[in-house]
């Protein structure tokens, strides 16, 4: 029995996966819990597929082994598919209903992936699908999608909601605190409703 609650956050370089992971780490500090996490830096950040591992209560290494994650948060549908093997059968996925087609698809003339077929390929998981862009705009900035996603997943994360909200306040730029706190709450409501599960 592993002692940690293991979350994998995946997306595309530039979508703010690292900030989302920082909020979780900061929340662990507030609750005096140990935490380990791993990030993508360097060249791989340039528009490529990125992953952040966060192990709440972790005491050993920072890496999560495929098949053992407790939660997968995906900022892009295709990235959800790419990393779904980190979840066990029927595992919990919170995914943004958003798809950026990789330039490689056009360059190499591959089949263009589409939303419906990806969602079908994820259907055996416990999926919560979120319109992060819409909720972020409602919160006041399209840039708050990462915090919307975090809010949407927060119901299954073993950290108190008020702790997470405080961590959001500590981690985001001063000028954007109110927008991001709104984004967190809108995401949380949407997550609780299981919004738009396919």
């Amino acid at each position, binding site marked *: 029995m*592993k002692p940690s609650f293991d979350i994998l956050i995946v997306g*595309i*370089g530039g979508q703010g996966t690292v900030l989302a*992971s*920082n909020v979780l*780490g*900061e929340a*662990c*500090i507030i609750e*005096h*819990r*140990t*935490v*380990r*996490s*791993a*990030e*993508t*830096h*360097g*060249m*791989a*950040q*340039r*528009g*490529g*597929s990125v992953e952040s591992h966060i192990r709440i209560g*972790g005491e*050993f*290494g*920072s*890496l999560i*082994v*495929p*098949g*053992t994650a407790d939660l997968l948060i995906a900022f892009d549908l*295709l*990235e959800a*598919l*790419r*990393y*779904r*093997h*980190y979840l*066990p059968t029927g595992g919990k996925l919170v995914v943004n209903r958003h798809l950026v*087609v*990789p*330039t*490689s*698809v*056009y*360059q190499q003339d*591959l*089949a*263009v*992936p589409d939303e419906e077929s990806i969602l079908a*390929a994820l259907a055996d998981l416990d999926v919560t699908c979120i319109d992060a862009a819409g909720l972020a705009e409602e919160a006041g900035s399209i840039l708050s999608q990462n915090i919307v996603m975090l809010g949407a997943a927060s119901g299954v994360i073993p950290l108190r909601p008020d702790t997470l909200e405080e961590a959001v306040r500590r981690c985001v730029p001063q000028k954007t605190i109110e927008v991001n706190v709104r984004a967190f709450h809108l995401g949380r409501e949407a997550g609780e409703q299981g919004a738009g599960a396919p």
Partner: protein
Amino acid sequence: MAVRYLLGNEGIAHACLEANIDFASGYPGTPSSEVIDVLRVQGERPFTVEWSTNEKVAFENALGAAWCGLRALCTMKHVGLNVAADPLMTSAYTGVTGGFVILSADDPFAHSSQNEQDTRRYAHFARLPCLDPASVQEAHDMMRDAFALSEEFSLPVIFRPTTRICHSKGDVDLGEIGTEHRTAAFHRNPKQYVVIPAHTRVLHKILNEKQPALKERLVELGYNRHTIRGKTAVVASGAAAAYVREVLGADVSLAVIGAYPIDDEWLRAFVDRHEKVLVIEELDPVVEEVVRQVATKTEVLGKMTGTVPFEGEFTPATVAAAMREAGIASTMAFPAAAPVPGVPPRPPILCAGCMHRPTFYAMRKVFRDGIFPSDIGCYTLGLQLGAVDTTICMGASITVGSGIARSGEERPVISTIGDSTFLHTGIPGLLNAVYNGADMVVVILDNRITAMTGHQPNPNTGMTATGVESIPISLEAICRSCGVSWVETVDPYDLPVLLDTLRRAKERKGVRVIIAKQPCVITARRSGIRRKAYEVDPERCTGCGACRSFGCPAIAFAGKNATITELCAGCGVCADICPSGAIGREGRQ
């Protein structure tokens, strides 16, 4: 002081502040860069911090400071230590006065590197102590104490974190930032600092005589430690030790190696008490070789028996598999979990609006049969555009290119090198190419910054590491003083001029240099430069696919027809490429 959630490199940087550091230098390189990046912007402890022009330069600057009695740090990635290997080897002979720590970050799996070399080999080669932390907290604690260790033995100390230490985060217990500062004073001592043969022979003996006490001290300090629990044992080092602890059964002994050289007697006593020992370490079998040397009757398993992989990065699953293979119980069995096949890849890609893309595009247009040696930087991603034929190490684009040109290969050679890489080790190669009469084109990709590693300033940026305005340098004047007579500077966003410049270069002989100059699109955006986005007029788009070959991530396709997404940075080059004139600035119609 406080527990904070920090990146390994942030914890390491804070430890330097706690240890009363007075001098830090480095050259950026993933995964090491954030250490200097933290030190250069922190305002809590004033001291000298610099980004140097290359790792050898950084090393020798820090060595000079340590010879003046200061506590000094120099940082680099593992391959940077190759560049600094010359002073490294002999600094072990001369030793130091102030504590001197060399941080050389290894990158198992080569996440962002050209090889998987193991810095611990350099430590052995130079006979220097090497610290190999297993966690972010240990990295902090080891770095805090490394300066004192250096002073105790008057030796430089190598500090070797790996990617999963540098770029992992965790709760780190920090100490107070030191407030003591030393006054630099160089005391003339030719027998130590002037390594003529008569002096160096003596110094070599002194270095060797330090080894036994050093080995014992690393055990005393608790860096090398063990717990005896049964008849089988695992010996592990670095990040792999954390993975072992995660899965190790309660009846298996464990020795953790956190520092080198390893005390042979201490290790023999441990190994001798077991029937079977499995050695688990990433990269080279450095620990395993010592275990094999000291083992008398114990069965030793590891890389050399095929039980543990030689290459790549480990996970708890790798470790559990090796333990199963060795017949050692692990507490966790990991499920076989393979990725879904056929998911389209999403590799890193040059940004929308990156100045390198039009440069590569134009090179391929003008030099259809060209050979394209390239270098280390974001622009290595030009591979995807068919404009990178070789990459081996920093500065090698010009030298490999002139070698190809002078070997008798008749096709034109066009080398590409970034501004920081050119200043790092490109200049001697350019000088050599001119001196020896090579026929080649060198394109300096001048984006004004060291972009790939996180936008560190270099002498071409006009600003030092600490934000002080620096004396402007001229790449053009450097090239001319190397003897290049044909040097042209061009804006790569201006595709017709860029193409024309390349065509004119093609007609000439000798070494021709083109400086393609435009700020990195990321730094430009951060500094407030906004360009209006472009759009496709669907009426005029014929679906010809000319823009597809440009490979910009802001260009998407609905069927055959192009569209431009919100990623557009407004460079406008695609508008010059489109043969139907279908692409224009937003709101043009």
